[in-house]
């Protein structure tokens, strides 16, 4: 377990040590009760002393945290298995068959719990299986009768349940940290954007304005300042937008990245959330149309993107005020095999179950209207 900050499973480790204490008391009581039936009672007492000592060491190790690593948990499993196998040493075969394995299944469960807390439900269940194999070896036969002997079921259930609890605690912790980080970075961006707005953008806008009035060489400087002002303004406002929101993507936040001096992007105030795949495809189709507009509409043309959320559908319109496509030129282009872009846009929209409409004509620019239904 790489120790980054406090382990979110710490409360579980603490609770497990309480369980360890109770299981030790139970093992002690069991030992007192059955001592007379054992073949080698003295050896059993010595082994119980070992058990109590080891338990104390484990408790300290897990509470302090230095024991919360694979090597330590493996050691614990080895000790547990060894103690279970020692039943052969202290008791007769008949006793082993009639009783639970020494030094009680309850105490053996500690290893399962440790494995589960350390590495999740699968490790926990594996720990439980190992403990059960050891006790099966002691008995010498596999007990299939889960009705009479539910130990295996209990071991697996403990491993699963505690493992999942530990996993959930870690995930929740990770998510919480992620959320806190996001909130912090968002705040930082907001603070930064306020500063940039109040300072740099205003000054650049002012320089560009005054410079244009003075004229001459200053006008060139003004032009540069103006470009920077607009670029900075876009940067700041698009940095505010976080397109990804879980499984959903804000199409508006994607589109606004394409805004430039020649591309105006009009959006509703609220995010337009779509399934991430749908949003990506629709965005790709819109970019196709936009790139096409910018490259074919002529050097002075502007492009306008409008995103509308109609509730049961989302529409993106991409219009340019360029030369447009004269009647028949589209057919001509198709004959020359230059219709790739239109085809790719229509293809994407068909794939999404939506539609693509092209309005064009000489002198009125070109407009694509891409609509996707919401499922």
């Amino acid at each position, binding site marked *: 377990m790489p120790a980054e900050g406090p382990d979110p499973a710490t409360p579980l480790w603490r609770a497990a040590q309480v369980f360890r204490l109770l299981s030790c008391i139970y093992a002690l009581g069991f030992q007192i009760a059955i001592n007379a039936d054992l073949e080698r009672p003295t050896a059993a007492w010595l082994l119980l002393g070992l058990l109590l000592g080891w338990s104390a060491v484990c408790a300290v190790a897990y509470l302090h945290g230095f024991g919360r690593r694979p090597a330590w948990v493996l050691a614990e499993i080895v000790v547990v298995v060894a103690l279970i196998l020692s039943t052969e040493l202290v008791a007769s075969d008949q006793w082993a068959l009639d009783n639970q394995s020494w030094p009680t299944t309850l105490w053996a469960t500690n290893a399962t719990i440790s494995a589960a807390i350390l590495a999740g439900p699968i490790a926990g269940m594996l720990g439980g299986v190992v403990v059960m194999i050891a006790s099966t070896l002691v008995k010498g036969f596999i007990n299939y009768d889960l009705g009479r002997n539910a130990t295996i079921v209990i071991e697996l259930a403990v491993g699963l349940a505690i493992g999942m609890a530990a996993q959930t605690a870690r995930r929740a912790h990770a998510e919480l940290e992620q959320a806190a980080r996001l909130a912090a970075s968002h705040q930082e961006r907001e603070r930064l954007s306020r500063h940039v707005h109040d300072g740099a953008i205003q000054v650049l806008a002012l320089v560009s304005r005054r410079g244009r*009035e003075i004229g001459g060489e200053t006008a060139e400087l003004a032009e540069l300042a103006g470009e920077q002002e607009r670029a900075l*303004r876009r940067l700041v406002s698009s940095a505010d937008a976080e397109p990804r929101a879980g499984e959903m993507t804000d199409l508006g936040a994607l589109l606004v990245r394409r805004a430039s001096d020649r591309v*105006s992007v009009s959006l509703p105030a609220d995010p337009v959330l779509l399934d991430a795949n749908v949003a990506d495809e629709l965005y790709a189709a819109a970019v196709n149309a936009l790139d096409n507009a910018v490259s074919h509409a002529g050097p002075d043309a502007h492009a*306008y993107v409008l995103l*509308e959320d109609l509730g049961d559908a989302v529409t993106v319109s991409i219009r340019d005020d360029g030369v447009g496509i004269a009647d028949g030129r589209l057919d001509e282009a198709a004959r020359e095999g230059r219709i790739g872009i239109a085809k790719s846009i229509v293809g994407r929209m068909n794939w999404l179950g939506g539609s693509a409409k092209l309005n064009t004509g000489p002198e009125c620019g070109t407009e694509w209207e891409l609509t996707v239904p919401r499922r």
Partner: protein
Amino acid sequence: MVVDDHPIWRDAVARDLAEDGFTVVATADGMAAARRRAAVVQPDVVVMDMRLADGDGAQATAEVIAVSPSSRILVLSASDEREDVLEAVKAGATGYLVKSASKQELGAAVRATAEGRAVFTPGLAGLVLGEYRRIAQNPGAGPGTPSLTERETEVLRYVAKGLTAKQIAASLSLSHRTVENHVQATFRKLQVANRVELARYAIEHGLDTPIAE
């Protein structure tokens, strides 16, 4: 009246307007000052920055209109922060211009605002359109919630797609003036709805004792 917390900007805008033949009756560096001075000078047009030291442009717009109901507000903003601008329009602003606009554009915008015409950008039209759609999709929408006529929706969509009023007029066979009226109507309905909403909120929360109107 020019409201901007940036002294250089405030002076530059005031000077530009004066050179353009306007009379700048007051300047203010924040919301409180804007309210005080607007109450006294009752300006025809207020050129309003969106970020002020003691509040935002939307709040300041509402406060200025409260003390000087005949004033028309033109928002001049360094940012195109979407929500801010929409709030300002709801609060009663009738125009919006970014600060990168030229001196000539500013003069034309102030003149248009003074004449009671709406000054808007494709981006603002997209916002207003989105706002109506949001309202329409809200299941709690009762009678009295603002909605657009088909024609208004059509006009707003054209504006948002960057067509000029002239182009829209030609394409819909309307007069230039009618197109502008449609846009203005969309702003006005949002403002009225916003006032009704505020009043309802005030009554529900027992705040219906004097709010300066």
